[in-house]
């Protein structure tokens, strides 16, 4: 192959890496081998050969097309669309973040798990909204510990187990050889248990502001607890948070969440957000068989009817739906908010989430949740 083509493709590979595609040397080698077999004068064939060897995900096709146009067709490139941030809201979160991270050192000294019985107990029942920054720092690690427990489902795979429910035929045959075909020993296999998928949808709109920080920590720890956890934030629209929460450091994750959810602190459109989730992710069966946890006060600003409709769709696909409403912690609370009332028929468990004790309760429910009896 002509050197010029090789150089061209290698450089193009670099261009793709710069816009964020994972293009390793193996892929570039495939592209070159592929180009060797097709007609280079046909633009369409060159395009598909490069695309099929260099791109591995549908959501990267757009980026690839843009780069291809710019590089091979010399078209002007449009910069990728960036969502506009809301400076005022960002500022607010920024402040609380620096609050939380200053004084980090002295906090690391004492283990929050050893607060002492009385201090611990007091904090457990204190509403997140009423905590001082210092108290909040103390409960951080407790939140992480709570979020670690996951509901299990039986995998269809089996392994040897003395009290299994199915005979281990391979071993049984071998053993029977020695006994003339009589299965004297009966080895068994049992199903393995694996974590059930967990999907968390967290309302971060203005009315939830006080609880958002604690819940984001909860989300972060949940995502860190293993595979099969997906987290989303919603306000006026939905945003997938799993990648942002994938980092080790909760504070950094918080910061990234803030960037990702541009409508932090503004109004809520629960129905529209649920619809977006169902349309985009439900179709890809993300919610099928999953335990779905919705964290929201149920204040739908727009269309309670839509909330009901989308909750029905969600509940059909999910294994179980848990709604966590921090306002429910208030003894005077009645679930009268329009959205909340519309959602209630589709909820398996309705919990609070306003303090540590209630998060513990949530974890216990998640660990032992049963599917609802009737839809």
């Amino acid at each position, binding site marked *: 192959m002509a050197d010029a083509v090789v150089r061209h493709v290698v450089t193009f590979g670099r261009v793709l890496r710069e816009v964020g595609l994972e293009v390793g040397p193996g892929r570039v080698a495939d592209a070159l081998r*592929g180009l060797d077999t097709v007609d280079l004068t046909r633009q369409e064939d060159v395009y598909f050969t490069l695309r099929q060897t260099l791109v591995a995900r549908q959501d990267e096709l757009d980026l690839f097309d843009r780069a291809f146009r710019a590089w091979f067709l010399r078209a002007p490139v449009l910069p990728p669309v960036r969502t506009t941030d809301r400076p005022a809201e960002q500022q607010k979160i920024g402040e609380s973040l620096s609050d939380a991270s200053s004084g980090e050192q002295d906090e690391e000294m004492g283990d929050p798990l050893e607060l002492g019985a009385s201090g611990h107990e007091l904090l457990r029942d204190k509403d997140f909204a009423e905590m001082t920054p210092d108290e909040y720092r103390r409960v951080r690690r407790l939140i992480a510990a709570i979020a670690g427990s996951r509901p299990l489902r039986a995998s269809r795979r089996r392994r040897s187990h003395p009290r299994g429910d199915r005979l281990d035929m391979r071993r049984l045959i071998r053993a029977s050889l020695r006994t003339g075909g009589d299965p004297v020993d009966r080895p068994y296999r049992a199903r393995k248990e694996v974590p059930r998928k967990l999907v968390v949808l967290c309302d971060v709109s203005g009315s939830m502001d006080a609880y958002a920080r604690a819940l984001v920590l909860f989300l972060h720890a949940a995502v860190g607890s293993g595979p099969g956890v997906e987290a989303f934030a919603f306000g006026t629209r939905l945003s997938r948070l799993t990648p942002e929460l994938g980092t080790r450091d909760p504070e950094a994750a918080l910061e990234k969440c803030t960037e990702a959810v541009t409508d932090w602190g503004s109004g809520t459109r629960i129905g529209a957000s649920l619809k977006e989730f169902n349309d985009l992710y439900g179709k*890809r*069966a993300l919610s099928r068989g999953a335990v779905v946890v919705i964290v929201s006060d149920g204040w739908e600003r727009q269309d309670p009817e839509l909330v009901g409709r989308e909750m029905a769709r969600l509940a059909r696909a999910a294994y179980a739906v848990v709604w966590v409403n921090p306002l429910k912690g208030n003894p005077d609370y009645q679930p009268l908010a329009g959205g909340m009332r519309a959602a209630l028929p589709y909820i398996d468990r309705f919990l609070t989430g306003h303090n540590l004790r209630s998060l513990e309760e949530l974890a216990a429910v998640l660990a032992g949740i049963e599917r609802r009896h009737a839809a």
Partner: protein
Amino acid sequence: MSAFRTIDELEVALQAADYLPDRGLSTALFLSLALEKPLLLEGEAGVGKTEAAKSLAVATGSRLIRLQCYEGLDVAHAVYEWNYPRQLLHIRAAQEGTVSEDELFGPEFLIRRPLLEAIDSDEPVVLLIDEIDRADEEFEAFLLEVLSDFQITIPELGTIRARRKPAVILTSNRTRELHDALKRRALFHWIGHPSIDREIEIVKIRIPGVSERLAAEAAAFVRELRGLDLAKPPGVAETIDWTMALNALGKQEIDADVVEQTLGSVLKYREDIEAVRDETLAQLVDTARATAAR
């Protein structure tokens, strides 16, 4: 190595198998053969992913071996399994002490499942691994091993190597993200809905004797449906089924009444059917007929 020297040659062979791929898909299939790499096909349900593999088998004169994936799919159902009842009977029937373990775990008692069949075949094979996203991740890891070495080890029999590499097509409906290592191993092609002209061609080739007008109007109508916000937008398979139904009813063109009666073969969800009732439906029919007339 591929029997086709150019993409055009492969296209001709696919068309002879009643399959009309667009240029992107032919390129993908061609590259998969030429580079001897698995091809991962993704796309909405009903765009013809499985069909592509079947047609490739016909076009290349290969045997199609299909592994349908599902949650919990394991080695016993994908690769091989020992025939335990026969083994037990054999031990019983034989004189005590005369059956050796080697005999018992020999080829005679082996049940061969799709992956082993594909690896251990003397004829050319197209191996279709359908809906890989439904299998669990442990199986995906195992599959990755098979696809990199094209060999399978059975403890009792030793290692079986492919004498000729099968062409491998994997399909996914994207119910979950596949493992990066698997994606690195494969070529990737995203199949979108076909252009309207191509869809009309596909309908005509699949339903011999269908009127040009009916094919065009049905394709145009389905296209309108895809533009709506539906839970499950119809694929090419639905267009074919539906046109077949209309054709069987003796229709030469579509009208609101017959569409209403047969909507169930295009839309599979009650909400979707309800969403396009009444005025919406009449409007869609008008638009589709106008598009088709052009």
